[in-house]
């Protein structure tokens, strides 16, 4: 399966998903007007990945900030990872990275950690 590589822009994060290593990385800023359109290829990739996942899947999210429509899309990504984890075909873990003293991003990570049923770690950069 091909990797999913999307370059970051001023409004969208960089995406680097590798099926071989089972590493998923979202980095940068996510403030597109139409988030669903931007994340559509990400959902599609994850759906295909879920058919033949790596034994361990590690997702790293390192966002500077994001708009509220992206917050919903991120949750949808976590939901997909949640069902993959539940299916026991891959052991999924999430690391949410935030800059030291960035309370907003720490809280955002904490929001997801309470909503999503996955091993979810908050980590200072």
């Amino acid at each position, binding site marked *: 399966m091909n990797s999913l590589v999307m370059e970051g822009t*001023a*409004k969208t994060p960089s995406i680097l998903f590798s099926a071989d290593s089972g590493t998923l990385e979202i980095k940068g800023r996510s*403030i*597109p*007007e*139409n*988030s*669903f*359109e931007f994340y559509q290829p990400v959902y599609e990739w994850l759906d295909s990945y879920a058919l033949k996942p790596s034994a361990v899947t590690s997702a790293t999210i390192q966002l*500077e*900030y994001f*708009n*509220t*429509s992206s*917050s*919903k*899309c991120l*949750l949808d990504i976590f939901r997909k990872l949640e069902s993959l984890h539940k299916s026991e075909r891959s052991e999924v873990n999430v690391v949410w990275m935030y800059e030291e*003293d*960035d*309370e*907003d991003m720490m*809280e955002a990570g904490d*929001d997801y950690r*309470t*909503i999503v049923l996955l091993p979810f770690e908050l980590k200072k950069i």
Partner: protein
Amino acid sequence: MISVYELYKQTKADEIILSFRGSVTEDFMASVFLIMESKLEGDPPQQRLRKKVNNILVECLQNVYHHMDEFGSEERPDDQRSAIFLVCRDSDNRYSIITGNHILNTNVDGLKNKIDKVNAMTGEELKEYYREALGNSELSAKGGAGLGMIEMARKSGNRIEYRFDPVNDRLSFFSLIVKID
């Protein structure tokens, strides 16, 4: 004639970092975010505050942008897409983001209730409410998740100030101020 002296005194106390009146488009917003990004310099506490300002600014502007899709061909083009917005900083380093735009009269009550509801909440209540709304929300056709007002109140830590001025039997002018300190 307006008092220029009053204006002078006012603008001295409240530095206007950015002001705009015109059509809010995707390209325009991209330019604004770029300009604001370039103002992110300064020491770390400053940077964090400005990052918060940028984050809330994105929410405010995209809010205005998404509202514009409610309009039909009945409205004058200027009323549909035109908006005003300002980013100000006072001498105590408190920021204000001000937006003004037209909305349909039929949406006034819903919006008012939404803002009143978040304004009545404590920080802890806002956190709970946000999590609940995030877990349950569906994206609207244009990408709004209905979480904007909650986020603005939560991140700014202040009440959202607003006002509706009747324009005609279809439209009102919606003014919003979010203060960040």
